[in-house]
Every structure is written in structure tokens, then in C-alpha cells.
């Protein structure tokens, strides 16, 4: 009974259990495929880009905002990165250029949302399509290759011969953001803003400034992800980052964050992300047609959203159930 109650109430517990169960099931189903080097690396690389962004996005959603442009910002900054490299600029300067691009997008988003007051959903929805179109238009819908060989080392250099730098950086990002959300005064303000914005303003929190910074950080991390992705594939494709928005938002919802803000945690979002990636991996390994992928993730999103919205009711019913069975024992 206690376990069941914890299952529904303690989201971190639930997520860890579900992920472990999932891994166990996958190992039982097809150990050789799941534990193969190709699969592990595939899993690691598919999750790494999203991990870099998810910390920033979680803090943004805790403050009550949302950023649908992350996928397109990945593409946009990857484009800037690729163009700079192609015109002969050194890798370091190109990185700075791409980062500036990402921060710029974030700043525009943040300004429109925090200072002009347009709904974040519509702003970033428009931005999503606008940026992706810009990427396609400027790149001429064609890919680019032929980057300096040294670039690959950014993503693929293997520490201790097995761990790529990409994933190490991603893990560091998740840990850093989790620590920031727990300890850092500035980032903790997001909880207050998300919980009750007028109250936060009255407390003296510079709400608009914090929101602007949130969006700029999200833009920055998207740019970082774009750089790593370009380095990993040693190529630029106009579609890079297309699925990121959906995956990250689903992951954060699975992690228990509320859309209106006030709650959420980076670790839980990461566990949600892991779960989403496992779903895709499971579909590939079990031989289920890959077409089921989007349908499954969409279904999971809806179910988790329902669960999130109704947890208090479920918890109350579970408590009643527990109480009634205790009463019976006494008699």
C-alpha cells in the first residue's frame, strides 16, 4: 500500500522505478541488441543534445513560461556555426558566433514575452516556424559538410576511451542546473514567479528581468546543443533539432512539471527524457514498426498530463482507501 501511494505521489520514485523496469524488460527481451555497443552509444547520443537544454527549459517552465523555439534555435545556431566554419573562421570564434545567435533568439523571445506581454505560447509557436523557415531559406534546403576535422573532437573525443565528451558535457549541464535550482538564489526565484507572479513582484523580485534571462539561457543552451550536434555529425542538415521541442516538453511533463509553473525539477525532467528515449529505443529493438514512435510518445504525453493534473484527486482517493483498510483491521 505504501509503495502504491509512493508510486503516485513521489514522482522521482515512480520515474526511477519505471526506467529501471523498462531497462530490465529490454534486457530480457533482447539483451544482445540492447546492450550492444551500437545501441548504448545510440541511446547516449540521442539523449545528450536534449539533456543540455532540458535544465534551462525546466527552469523556464517552473517560472510559468514555455519555449517552443528550442528545436528551431538548435537549427539556427547550427546554421550560423556551419556558415562561420565554412568561411574559414576558426572553431573557437565560430562557437562564440553560434552562441551569440542562440542568446539573441532567447533575448528576442524574452523581450516579447516578458516586456511586451505576449503569451509565451503564441510567441514561441510563431518563432518555431519563423526560425525553421529562415534556416531552410538561408541554407537553401541543402546540407553542408567539409568541416575542419578537429571539430569532431568536441563531441566524439572519448574520455577513458569509452565516454564521449558530448555526454559528459550533457551530464554536467543536468547536474549544474539541478544544483542551481536548489541552491542559487537567482534561479530559485523561478519557483516564486511560477507559483504566484503578482506575489513575486510584490516581494521585490524583478520578474521581467528573470524571465528574460530564462529565455536567454534557454537560447544559449540550445545553441550549445546545436554546436555539439554539428560536431558529432560533422555535417549540417537543415532539419537538425526538429524533434527536440516535442521530446523536451514531453520529458518535462513526464517529470511532473506543471505548465502553469511553480513546480518541477531538473532531475525528474531528465528521468522523463530517459524514459522517452527508452521508448524510441525499445521500438527499434523490439522490431515494432518505427511509425509507432510518435503515436506512443503522444499517448504518453496525454496520459502524463492527465496524471499531473489529477494527482491530488488520486492521492486523496488512495489515502481514503488506506484509511478504510486500516479501519477494517482495527475492528
Amino acid at each position: 500500500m505504501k509503495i502504491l501511494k509512493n508510486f503516485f505521489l513521489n514522482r522521482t520514485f515512480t520515474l526511477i522505478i519505471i526506467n529501471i523496469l523498462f531497462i530490465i524488460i529490454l534486457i530480457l527481451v533482447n539483451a544482445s541488441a540492447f546492450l550492444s555497443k551500437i545501441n548504448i552509444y545510440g541511446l547516449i547520443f540521442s539523449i545528450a543534445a536534449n539533456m543540455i537544454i532540458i535544465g534551462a527549459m525546466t527552469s523556464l517552465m517552473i517560472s510559468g513560461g514555455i519555449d517552443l523555439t528550442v528545436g528551431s534555435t538548435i537549427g539556427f545556431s547550427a546554421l550560423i556555426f556551419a556558415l562561420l566554419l565554412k568561411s574559414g573562421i576558426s572553431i573557437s570564434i565560430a562557437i562564440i558566433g553560434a552562441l551569440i545567435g542562440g542568446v539573441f533568439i532567447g533575448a528576442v523571445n524574452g523581450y516579447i514575452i516578458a516586456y511586451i506581454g505576449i503569451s509565451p505560447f503564441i510567441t514561441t509557436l510563431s518563432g518555431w516556424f519563423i526560425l525553421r523557415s529562415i534556416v531552410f531559406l538561408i541554407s537553401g534546403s541543402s546540407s553542408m559538410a567539409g568541416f575542419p576535422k578537429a571539430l569532431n573532437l568536441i563531441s566524439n573525443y572519448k574520455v577513458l576511451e569509452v565516454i564521449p565528451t558530448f555526454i559528459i558535457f550533457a551530464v554536467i549541464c543536468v547536474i549544474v542546473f539541478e544544483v542551481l535550482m536548489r541552491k542559487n538564489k537567482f534561479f530559485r526565484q523561478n519557483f516564486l514567479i511560477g507559483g504566484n507572479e503578482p506575489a513575486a513582484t510584490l516581494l521585490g523580485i524583478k520578474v521581467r528581468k528573470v524571465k528574460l534571462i530564462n529565455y536567454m539561457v534557454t537560447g544559449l543552451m540550445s545553441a550549445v546543443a546545436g554546436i555539439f550536434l554539428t560536431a558529432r555529425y560533422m555535417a549540417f542538415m537543415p532539419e537538425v533539432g526538429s524533434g527536440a521541442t516535442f521530446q523536451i516538453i514531453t520529458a518535462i511533463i513526464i517529470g511532473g512539471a506543471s505548465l502553469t509553473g511553480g513546480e518541477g525539477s531538473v532531475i525528474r525532467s531528465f528521468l522523463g527524457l530517459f524514459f522517452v528515449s527508452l521508448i524510441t529505443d525499445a521500438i527499434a529493438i523490439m522490431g515494432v514498426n518505427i511509425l509507432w514512435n510518435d503515436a506512443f510518445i503522444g499517448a504518453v504525453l496525454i496520459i502524463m498530463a492527465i496524471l499531473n493534473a489529477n494527482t491530488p484527486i488520486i492521492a486523496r482517493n488512495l489515502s481514503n482507501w488506506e484509511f478504510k483498510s486500516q479501519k477494517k483491521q482495527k475492528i
Partner: protein
Amino acid sequence: MKLLFKNFFIKREVVLFLVIVLLFLVVGLLNPKDFFSIGNFKAYMTIISVRAIVACGMTVLMISGGFDMSVGGQSAMLGIILGIMVFKGMNTTISVIITIIFGVVVGLVIGFIVSKLKVNPFMVTLGGMFLFSGLAIIIAFVGGGGKFQDQFVTVRPLTAIHGIAGGSFHGVEYIVFYMVGILIISYIFLKKNKFLRQNFYIGSNENAARLVGIKVDRLKIINYALVGLMVAIAAILKVSRYNFATAVADSNYPLEIIASVIIGGASLSGGEGSIIGSFLGVCLLTLIYNSTIILGINPAWYTLLVGVILLMSVLYNEFIRKKFVIYKN
């Protein structure tokens, strides 16, 4: 004269109409041969008709403050369901009825999740968008006998159903008549029907509406079902007109339809909206798309423009209609 300017020309619908006329003239001047051809006219009228029907349902929904991002997925899925049924030789009338029922049921479920289970509509419809498109592809795959028909997961030919919307009456396609009919019905209903008019109250102030005794939950569920119904009708007409159903279409639907409705005057939080405005919004966006084809411009410009226009419309709403003030730091 000044009064005329102030009261008439500032009206959104009028501005939209003038913009459309302007667009017509500009593109017409640049490429009169293609733009003013009968074939082109039929092409974009068909697209406008299909989208306008969905936009009617969406307008009602957005007036109540909700929105539905899954219309693209719904359209693909319903189209494929219809396509598979007709392909397998099922009676066309029954297929149509089943498709409509499907659309309404999907809408009812979404409405239920949004109103009774209190989930944010963005989350549900975002999930729905991917769920339905995924289902559409799977149904097409399975229904097509486990292999891809064409490379676009398409079902064709569906001549059996062509009769519904395939012909034309004195040169004007049937589909246009359907659209006009639905537009008129929607317009009258929204203006006169007490039940649907309640959407305006819900959109303006949901709590107040509840206190006044309006059955908010029931109305919201009906709104979503209405959207589902409209999507079903539009999908049926589209499949019938073009003779095929494809699972990979309409991925831009949500953006375009929502943008059309907002351009037409709806506010995101609800309380405002108009059928005529949405219709003009659909016309404008479709004509812009048509222009990119006629003038040979990269279609990515179209998506870019839609995003920009959407943003501009929302900014316009905030600034001019609500007299918003930019915060000075």
C-alpha cells in the same frame, strides 16, 4: 468622412479584405497569366474551402478560450480512415458516416480530457497531434496490406467517393458550395443561437460564466466535438475531391488555422472572434501560399510569413485593441 474612416476602415474585416485585394493586384500584375487562370482559381478555392470549414469550428473553440493543435493529425487520421474504408469497397454512405462519428468522438474525448480532467489544452492537443498523425500512418500502413502505397502512405484511387465533392456546378466546384453553406450556418448560429453565444462569456471570464449558471464543461466538450466534426467534414470533402487520402499531409494545419482565426480577430484567451474574420484570414494565408507557387518563390517564405503575420496580429491585438503599454525599464 473622418467618422467613416474611424469606424469602418479600422474594422478588422475591412482591413483584411483590403489587404487581400492588394495582394490580388500585386500578384496579378506580376504574373497575370498564371494567377488569373481558371485552373489556379479552382485550386486555391478548393484549399480555401477545406480550411475555412475547419476554421469555423476552430473559431467557436477559440472564442471560448480553448484551442486545438491536433487538427492536423485529426485530418490525416480521418482522411485515412475514410480512404481505407472506401478502398476496401465499403459502402460510401456508411464510410462517410463512420468517419464523421470518429471525428466527433475524438473531439468529445479531447473535450472531456480538457474540461473534466482539467488538463491544459495545449498539452492534450500537442500530444494528440503526434498521436493522431502516428495513428494515421499506422492505419494507412496496415490498411494498405503492410506495405507503403506510393511512398507517401497514400490510398488511391477512391473514385467511389468522388461524387460527393468531385464535380462542379456551372464551373464552381461543389466543395465551394459546402463551404459557403457551412460558413452561413456557422455565422447565423454564432450570432443567434443562445447556446453557442455563451462561448463569448466563457472566453471573457470563465469563473463569472460558471457563476451565472452556464454549463461551462458541457459547452467546452461540445466545442471540441464541433472542431472534430468540422475536421471530419473537411477531410471527407478533400478526399472526395482529390481522389486520394494521404497520411502525411496537413502537418502545418494547426499553425495555419490558428493563425487564420487569430488574424481574423480572435484572441488567444478567448472572448473574441468572428467567422467572417477567420474566413478572410484563411483567404489571405491561402492566397499568400498560392502566390509563392505562382511567383516561383521558395515555399519556406510562406511558413516564415505565416509566423510573422501571426506574431504581428497578436501584437496588434495587444497594442491597439487593448491599448497595451510597453514597459520601460
